[in-house]
């Protein structure tokens, strides 16, 4: 794509965004109350004059976003924390569960990929365990671990495990015979072969698996935190729903989307780094 095309695509994206905002604005804006009750009465009834009982407008969202982003790290007790703190809690859980999953998936995937016997023996378990919604593990996790935050990490671990494991096994099994034969004829020791031949050869596939895993982990963390509560961006969404503050809910949704995009971008970059042209 030329830079000209990039520019055009960018302009078009902006147009789409503006159109969406305009439609949203037209659909949600409410006529000003014709006869505004006097201010003192309003203060008696609610906090301010800007009380709205409908779906939030874009400008209300902008207002809320400004407030949240101006002070993202405040902490006024369990039910009132800044969006930055909530996001950090979620990211920490995802990082913990994901890292554990990778630490298990890559060595295990190596073994499965290198041994057709092990691959066949473990395949039924993987096939049964893979389609289970990670949230279904939550009761078991809560019962055995007895800690809601750690249970969240466990759920992330479970859901990140399968794509990373399956892709690692596939990547390792698909390493070209020629390269393995080169290693054999050079009498390369097993560990050196694993790290200097198989790992770089399978790295693009492994990174693909990790990229899928981190995407699923970010999907699941929101649901998990809604269930276990306490902290995190998922809990924030649920809490704001209980507060009937749809503006904050929409803002949180946007934050979740942007964060997911950033995570995917990072892993896309890593993937590019290890990809080779044959």
């Amino acid at each position, binding site marked *: 794509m030329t830079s000209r095309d990039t520019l055009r695509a960018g302009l078009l994206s902006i147009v789409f965004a503006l159109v969406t905002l305009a439609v949203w604005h037209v659909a949600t804006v409410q006529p000003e109350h014709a006869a505004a009750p006097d201010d003192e009465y309003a203060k008696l009834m609610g906090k301010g004059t800007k009380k709205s009982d409908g779906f939030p407008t874009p400008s209300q969202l902008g207002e809320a976003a400004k407030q949240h982003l101006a002070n993202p790290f405040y902490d006024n007790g369990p039910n009132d924390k800044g969006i930055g703190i909530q996001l950090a809690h979620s990211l920490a859980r995802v990082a913990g569960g994901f890292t554990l999953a990778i630490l298990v998936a890559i060595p295990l995937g190596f073994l499965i990929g290198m041994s057709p016997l092990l691959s066949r023996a473990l395949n039924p378990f993987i096939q049964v365990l893979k389609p289970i919604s990670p949230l279904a593990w939550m009761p078991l996790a809560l019962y055995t671990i007895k800690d809601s935050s750690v249970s969240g990490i466990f759920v992330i671990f479970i859901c990140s495990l399968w794509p990373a494991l399956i892709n690692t096994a596939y990547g390792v099994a698909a390493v070209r015979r020629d390269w393995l*034969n*080169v290693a054999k*004829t*050079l009498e390369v020791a097993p560990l050196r072969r694993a790290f200097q031949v198989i790992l770089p050869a399978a790295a693009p596939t492994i990174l693909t698996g990790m990229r899928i895993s981190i995407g699923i982990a970010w999907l699941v963390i929101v649901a998990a935190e809604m269930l276990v509560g306490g902290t995190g961006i998922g809990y924030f969404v649920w809490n704001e729903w209980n507060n009937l503050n749809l503006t904050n809910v929409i803002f949180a949704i946007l934050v979740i989307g942007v964060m997911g995009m950033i995570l995917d971008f990072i892993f896309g970059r890593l993937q590019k780094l290890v990809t*080779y042209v044959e």
Partner: protein
Amino acid sequence: MAFLEVQGLKKVFAGAGGRADTAVFEDINFGIERGEFVCIIGHSGCGKTTILNVLAGLETPTDGVVIMDQREISGPSLDRGVVFQGHALMPWLSVLKNVAFAVKSRWPEWSREKIDEHAKQYIAMVGLAGAEHKKPSELSGGMKQRVGIARAFAIQPKMLLLDEPFGALDALTRGTIQDELLRIVQATHQTVFMITHDVDEAILLADKILLMSNGPRALIAEVVENTMPRDRTRNTIFNDPQYYRIRNHLVDFLVNRSKLYQSGEARAGHDPKHPPVLRPGLDAAEAPAAHAAPAALPPMSQKATALVVNLR
């Protein structure tokens, strides 16, 4: 005893779907002297690559042994360098790193500088100085194969095994690399075993050409000694009348006689332990014209006289 001895080699592949097991080749016997360049020629399916893989230690034969330097071959070894058909370079490593990978395998105790220096020397030998830091994907097919050759030579093996190294290259590139290989082999007195489909390539490079009959149950039908002077080059080879005699003999074998060994008279009269050793180049009595005529007769009756020189 030759430097490398192949004795009674046989490979059977299990028949798929209830079919009987088939021996690709059986009772293969030959020897390679130190410093000798041996080519093996035969149609597809006669098991040339399997023989090479057995010599490399990548495959185990069903029967028979290979002895190199008085020791039986059991598994791959740094003593035997292999140039693979599809170059087999690691695409995530630069040219230098690909060669250095092999050098480090050979001499793990060497410092990085020494390894790189050694690798560079061999990269320069195949005419790729200046391309050390390129990735294989940035190289042409011929250049990739040169890196493969440099990698095999860099570990200074006792023997070099080449599996149709130039098969995928265009004729011009192939010629240039053949010249280079010839030059390097002549300078280093490397012992080489090479598979080829190309008759001209075999005549240019080989001291001894093994002719394999068609599979299954392929065998070494004849051993052709190349009697042309060793300082031959691709440009002068055509001036030697021997070239045409050898060439006609090889082509005649591939076209007409390689299929006769499946059964019957040719096989019955053949001693696989001592395949006939021929020197068609020296055959002054049979003029090139006689060779040009298709030889439909069984080989032994036609060429039994004078040509057979049994080395044992």
